[in-house]
């Protein structure tokens, strides 16, 4: 039952093969059984069973929403009314959100059953899920390895069948990289496609929520429910949402795939490169044409990102001051003491590092040299993509330079950790949509392929991913012990 796709479950629920309550109970027991993966920060058992009962009643009355009764889980960055929303931080360990994020509202309205809240890097800052206050998540394919981050709880939970699908957020690769490392499918939508309201901000101009699931088909269904204009988010775009599932079956003959030479140079692991080449060969067989493109400014993406994202986060995280909510130090002596100790105790090392970097970059005398320069680079990178996407339909390349690295391997070397996002970060700077889909293994660990499309081309990306998944079964592989 837990290996079925959303459509299969929806059918099973309506044929009376099983109920949502039974399905939910199954997932709840699997979550308990595999608690050592540390995917969940909070399991909302009672709420889930209540929602499942409601879903069963709705289905009995003829409800047709594909997500009704489907067990899903939310990354703990999305505010959920009445439920702890920790953002992976000690700072919010005591925070019960008094309202729902728009994404949560939409999925609730679609009838989905929330199993709980998923572990993540603290405030979404990290690429390995090791910065979480709740400890690292383990990769179900290789439990000594990281699941990727920051949406590591989401990717591991979906791969281990501890949820049918999950939400994630992606600021510099946080959906795509963990999806690749856990062998699942993930999509970072165009900036503005999914509402950011109620999604705790890390870097506002880069953050974007998106779906994580086993297949492109499931991803399309989840994205459908998450997308759309939200008047509560000024940066969300008022454009109609296409039918993502309807586009899946289109033929991709004649598809022009761009391969940026900068994506396949030094730094890319040889085995990973081979797996990617094979997948691209598969696309050729499906009728695609290949073309080399160039992204000359790509090497500037990481430095630009590590100015812009910390600058925004330095302001975004100022509200965690121990005054109104979140962690407050014991017996503050005065205001400065309240701030210093509450923040000093509440934030982890990586969060502090980024707040300090951002504060520095915005300081008087440094603003032009760092922040403004980074914004100019951002423009150049967008222009590179624009130019490339005028020549081809989509761009393909690796998601990450290696497969999932070992737990503890990079956590003390921030620069090396940052470099693991080298292929994903530029896409956030440009605001483009991109996907990661499983295309094989290297030494038993999954490898992902990244597909980058033009603004609002999510339907095209899903179509291209689905066509590959029709002729491959990498997305159907189940990690050992989680069958």
């Amino acid at each position, binding site marked *: 039952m837990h290996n079925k796709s959303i459509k299969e479950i929806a059918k099973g629920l309506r044929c009376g093969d099983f109920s949502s309550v039974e399905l939910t109970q199954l997932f709840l027991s699997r979550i308990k059984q595999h608690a050592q993966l540390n995917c969940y920060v909070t399991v909302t058992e009672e709420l889930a069973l209540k929602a499942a009962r409601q879903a069963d009643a709705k289905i009995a009355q003829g409800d047709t929403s594909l997500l009704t009764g489907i067990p899903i889980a939310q990354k703990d960055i999305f505010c959920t009314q009445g439920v702890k929303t920790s953002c992976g931080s000690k700072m919010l360990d005591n925070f019960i959100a008094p*309202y729902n994020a728009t994404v949560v509202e939409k999925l609730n309205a679609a009838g989905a059953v929330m199993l709980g809240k998923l572990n993540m890097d603290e405030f979404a800052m990290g690429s390995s899920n090791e910065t979480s206050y709740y400890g690292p998540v383990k990769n179900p394919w290789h439990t000594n390895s990281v699941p990727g981050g920051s949406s590591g709880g989401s990717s591991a939970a979906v791969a281990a069948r501890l949820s049918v699908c999950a939400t994630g957020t992606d600021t510099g690769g946080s959906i795509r990289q963990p999806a690749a490392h856990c062998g699942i499918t993930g999509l970072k939508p165009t900036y503005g496609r999914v509402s950011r309201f109620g999604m705790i901000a890390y870097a506002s*101009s880069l953050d974007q929520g998106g779906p994580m699931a086993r297949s492109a088909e499931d991803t399309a269904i989840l994205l459908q429910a998450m997308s759309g204009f939200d008047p509560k988010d000024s940066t969300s775009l008022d454009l109609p949402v296409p039918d993502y599932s309807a586009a899946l079956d289109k033929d991709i003959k004649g598809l022009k795939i761009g391969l940026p030479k900068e994506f396949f140079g030094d730094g890319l692991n040889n085995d990973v490169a081979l797996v990617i080449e094979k997948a691209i060969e598969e696309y050729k067989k499906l009728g695609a044409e290949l073309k080399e493109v160039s992204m000359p400014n790509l090497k500037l993406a990481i430095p630009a990102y590590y100015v812009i994202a910390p*600058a925004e986060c330095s302001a975004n995280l100022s509200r965690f001051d121990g005054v*109104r909510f979140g962690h407050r130090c014991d017996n503050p002596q005065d205001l400065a003491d309240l701030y210093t100790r509450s923040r000093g105790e509440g934030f982890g090392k990586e969060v502090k590092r980024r707040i300090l970097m951002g*504060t520095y970059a915005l*300081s*008087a005398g440094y603003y032009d040299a760092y922040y403004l320069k980074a914004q100019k680079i951002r423009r150049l990178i967008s222009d590179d993509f624009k130019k490339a996407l005028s020549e081809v339909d989509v761009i393909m390349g690796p998601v990450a330079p290696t497969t999932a690295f070992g737990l503890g391997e990079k956590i003390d070397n921030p620069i090396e950790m940052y470099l693991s996002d080298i292929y994903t970060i530029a896409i956030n700077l440009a605001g483009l949509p991109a996907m990661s889909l499983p295309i094989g293994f290297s030494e038993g660990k999954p490898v992902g392929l990244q597909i980058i499309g033009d603004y609002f081309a999510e339907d095209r990306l899903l179509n291209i991913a689905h066509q590959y998944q029709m002729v491959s079964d990498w997305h159907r592989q189940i990690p050992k012990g989680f069958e």
Partner: protein
Amino acid sequence: MENYQENWESVIGLEIHAQLATQSKIFSGASTAYGAEPNTQACAVDLGLPGVLPVLNEQAVSFAVKFGLAIDAEIAPYSVFARKNYFYPDLPKGYQISQFELPIVGNGHLDIDVDGETKRIGITRAHLEEDAGKSLHESFHGMSGIDLNRAGTPLLEIVSEPELRSAKEAVAYMRKMHELVRYLGICDGNMQEGSFRCDANVSVRPKGQQEFGTRAEIKNINSFKFVEKAINHEIERQIELIESGGKVVQETRLYDANKDETRSMRSKEEANDYRYFPDPDLLPVEITEIFKAQIKAQLPELPAAKKQRFTEQYGLDCESAGILTSSRQLSDYFESLVKESLCEAKLCANWITGDLLASLNKTDLDIADSPVSYQRLAGLLIRINDQTISGKIAKQVFELMWQSNSTADEIIDEKGLKQITDTGAIEAIIDRIIAENPGQVEQYLSGKDKVFGFFVGQVMKEMQGKANPAEVNKMLKAKLK
């Protein structure tokens, strides 16, 4: 102060914070109404809860554009909200959303009148921002309380050029600005509630010197009286300091109204580095020509134009026209009164600038809350005009009207105040008074014209003021020949 003025010149610039009269806050749907229970008008956005996002209130933008057009300013086709970062408990997000490099309103100007001369004061910019909450340093078991009702209230910060040269000019500028924002209907101007307040940048320099002296900024002044006192005090302090060999340091000072002094809050060295950067949660504000034209069409007649019209159309003197156009409600009251009573504009103007404003001032009421509406006052003026009552009796009637809901006619009837036009009755009294005062008659006839007033007074007294004074004069003159 007087002898200082001979050697020194003061240079003043004002930053006025006008709270925009929108129903809801600048970035949330919470109400902006004043005086509610603490923290009852602060929603998730105002509290800066994790995950919330600001959404710009369009009316605040319209109001800012309206203001810009009224001061003949450049309206930025593209303006940007920025985050001003600093920690304070009443600033929920740890940053204030304001505008920095690209404000919505650019260069403009405002004309002020000081000592009969008109002076044009440049306005550097005006920008939109959100207000902070309030810290309540009362006793909460040794802690401070925070009230976030005010957090997110829209403000327009209006920055003048350093072109004001005295506290008097600063007050005139502030008054004029106060008049303007109320005319435009973009700010209620309530200074007690903090809807209109200012910071003053003050420096002094020897007369004739071109460069500016070092300035001090006096924060949060919320009355016209305090602006004048605070600035004068600061000018004096700076001159004394320099003349005794000291140096003015750039700093922020606070005016203490109780002690009538300013004291240092923080120096430049201690000043915050606000680390402004564009707010990524908000899109740039784009103002189209069409939008500007729509706002322009809504602009009311502005005070300067209205004053000019009042002198021309109604033949009023500059002073009365100035008083009557000092607020939109007052000028509306005047024009309604003229229309309703069909009396001479001057009579209407005199009654408003005289008895009505005096009574309003005495009871500390605004014209909008006047117990005597223009319709009722018109009723009174009509009776003066048709000579039913004299001007003097009218004052009595007005006072009774102030205290009741009765019309002028009802009071005149009830109190029997109708002017006596029966010449027979007047004649009888005149005859009696002449007979009773032979001495005065002799004096008058021997050329002492002043005594005539004595007879008028006696007759009016006998008639309890109800005689038509013109008629009494005429008859007395005839009798005393």
